[in-house]
């Protein structure tokens, strides 16, 4: 249910934003929307999905410097407010 609501909000956001530019945390003006999405989805269990895992950041940086990985800024994410 929460995911459905989040998706509805995302669809609304895409319509309101004009559709051409991706929202990323650096240029979101409607941060309230992503706060809502975060709130309603952060506690949802997804035992059926792949787990979220930490990486060995030193190795990732090393691979990024050699060009085998990129640290290309992604779109479609929101900063999480702990409060």
């Amino acid at each position, binding site marked *: 249910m929460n995911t459905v609501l989040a998706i509805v909000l995302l669809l609304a956001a*895409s319509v309101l934003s004009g559709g051409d530019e991706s929202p990323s945390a650096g240029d979101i003006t409607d941060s309230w929307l992503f706060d809502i999405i975060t709130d309603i989805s952060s506690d949802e269990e997804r035992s*059926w999905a792949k787990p979220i895992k*930490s990486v060995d950041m030193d190795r990732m940086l090393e691979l990024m410097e050699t060009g085998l*990985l990129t640290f290309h800024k992604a779109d479609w994410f929101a900063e999480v407010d702990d409060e």
Partner: protein
Amino acid sequence: MMSNSVQCVLCPHLCTLAPGERGRCGVRLNVEGELVSLVYGRPVAVHIDPVEKKPLFHFLPGIDVFSIATAGCNLKCEFCQNWEISQAVPEDMTPYDMPPEAVIENALDFSCRAIAYTYTEPVVYFEYTRDCARLAREAGIKNILVTAGYINPGPLSELAQYIDAANVDLKAMSDDYYRNICGGTLQPVLDTITYLKESGTWVEVTNLVVPTLNDDPDEIDSLSRWVLENTGEDTPLHFSRFFPMYRLTDLPPTSIDTLRGARERAMEIGLNHVYVGNAVTQDGMTTECPECGETLVVRQGFMITENNILNGKCGNCSAPIAGVWDGMEEE
């Protein structure tokens, strides 16, 4: 107070990631409060395929398609036929260095009329797909998305504007199946199919028929009926043959009889173009005119051996045939 955690809103998993964590796709990482793609411009598979291999049977038959994939997928299908790259993490792969400009250049050099984002899951390399697709559109190259459709509506609408054709994998009509076998949910996939259809993308649907898991005739009927009622009678549906792979090596390959039966049921329900994939059958690979029954396109494997569609119409009775065909755009 901001915690440097981020939430990826690209797909319905909505992963919340602390710094140093990556999403369920394995390729989107929180680096000090900023989400980054680990695979932008780093495909691990680059091939030239016939469009029939995607499979797309009603989209410019016979054309060569420049086909790329990075590592990663946001699902974890136990039957995955490309699991070596889809379930891999990018640091365990040796990729090509191929920024979007190089993709377009290569596609043009090899006379490919389309680029396919395929093999793994283009949703997880969203930014790369979108940037390639945008440049391809400018260069007059078509864009093909081969996807499981597990994406949120906002990103989908951004991507869809550049996509000319899509083959969406509809794995079953059961949410339990998606959760238990694939690590996802059903409804977002259905939403993706209807959105793409309504937004003008040419859509074909593939269903991998897995023995004992989703080959029940009622399941086949339910899926066929959904395709008919939500995308129309002219949407091609491909029933694809399963081979034992990844975590389902204890199941046999799908029998040809099962695939033929699925095709017959779907056509009885009212779909005009139903095909059998990953298997050599004569009738399951042939396009017929829904009006006069004339044989229009004959395929041997991925080769076109006969094509009687003229400017998008049946060569016999001139009924329009759904799809994107050479000669149509000039009309």
